[in-house]
């Protein structure tokens, strides 16, 4: 262990929402909050995958810092004072969700993931009852060329969990992100149909880490696609051991 990591690993004390909590120095605000039963909404984050700080749902306020910080990637400091819930944060979180609902075509009533979808539950938890910005109605594809799975880009939130699980855990790196801005989307191999992918091992990890109805198994009907996440704790353990 180098001196810096030894130092980082020392116990820190901090306050979250006024409560005193302790943490080891290499933990993120999100980890410490969750250990203490304080809920911070997340979407792109998934324990066991490298955090990317992309969805911005987990933004928190830290006393003395004038920027909002993503809890999923921000490490704790001694005497840090974190606030995870304020009128302003709630408003921004609702807007992030509104943006996601307008960006693509989410029609929960006919979605295979209805009732098992993180985007849907986030909207409910955050009190997002309707969307105030105009929907964009992008025309997007469904790729059902894979024998067992399909990707419906209408439901993708670009969290890149699929990209990361495939690269970091399965080691196949079948998924990647293509294009930029509003045109960005996930692709398999070099933008080839998933069914023709030579790198995909068919392990299905991407399907089960996908928070929405974008990646699903074939043959499931509306509201039937529940994700099996039992393997996730092992990912975290394995990665921690590997250092």
């Amino acid at each position: 262990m180098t001196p810096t990591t030894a130092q980082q690993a020392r116990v820190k004390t901090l306050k979250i929402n006024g409560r005193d909590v302790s943490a080891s120095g290499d933990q993120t605000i999100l980890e410490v909050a969750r250990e203490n039963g304080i809920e911070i909404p997340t979407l792109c984050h998934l324990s066991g995958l490298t955090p990317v700080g992309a969805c911005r749902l987990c933004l928190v306020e830290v006393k003395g810092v004038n920027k909002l910080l993503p809890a999923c990637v921000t490490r704790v400091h001694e005497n840090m004072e974190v606030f995870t819930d304020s009128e302003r944060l709630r408003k921004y979180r609702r807007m992030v969700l509104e943006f996601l609902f307008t960006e693509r075509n989410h029609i929960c009533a006919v979605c295979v993931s209805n009732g098992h979808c993180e985007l849907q539950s986030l909207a409910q938890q955050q009190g997002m009852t309707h969307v105030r910005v105009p929907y964009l109605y992008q025309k997007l594809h469904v790729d059902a060329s894979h024998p067992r799975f399909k990707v419906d880009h209408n439901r993708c939130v670009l969290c890149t969990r699929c990209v990361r699980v495939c690269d970091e855990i399965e080691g196949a790196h079948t998924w990647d992100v293509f294009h930029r801005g509003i045109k960005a989307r996930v692709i398999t191999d070099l933008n080839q149909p998933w069914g023709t992918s030579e790198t995909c091992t068919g392990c299905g990890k991407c399907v089960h880490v996908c928070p929405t109805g974008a990646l699903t198994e074939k043959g499931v009907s509306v509201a039937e696609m529940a994700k099996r996440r039992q393997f996730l704790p092992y990912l975290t353990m394995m990665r921690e051991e590997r250092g």
Partner: protein
Amino acid sequence: MSSNKVKVATVWLDGCSGCHMSFLDMDERLVELADKIELVYSPLVDMKEFPEMVDVTLVEGAVASVEDLHKIRKIREHTKILVSLGDCAVTSNVPSMRNPFKLEDVLSRAYLENADLNQQIPQEVIPKLLPHARPVHELVKVDVFIPGCPPSADTIYFAISELLEGRIPELSDKTRFGA
């Protein structure tokens, strides 16, 4: 007709009538509500003209045609509290599935490509469609949103009860999109 009951209307735009079915699913609670509210306009009652002023109007369905648009504008003018009832009214839901496509393409698919007989795009009787099916609040101000496809009878009952008590219902633990 003057009573001190709260005047309630329900309207049906571009929706499947599921929300109205759910409304009827309140069953015996409808009887209880009938003491407090008067249903002054609805597909469920026979009344041709929208009344001068209504306390609460529940709207089912998206705004999809020119007729829907005229209707909802008029209703807004004659309603104190406008409620978007169900996902079609709140998000435009299933009717919005045509939105990524051009209107001409949708019409020609429905009336030309997929028609066996009499292939032509109707010019009369059927109201002219708007380019997109839209959520109600994009066109007029909406005061209360009840997501759900359809919202359960319990949710509707709770929402109406709260409104009768003069409160804006807090529904996030009761319903959600697609519920």
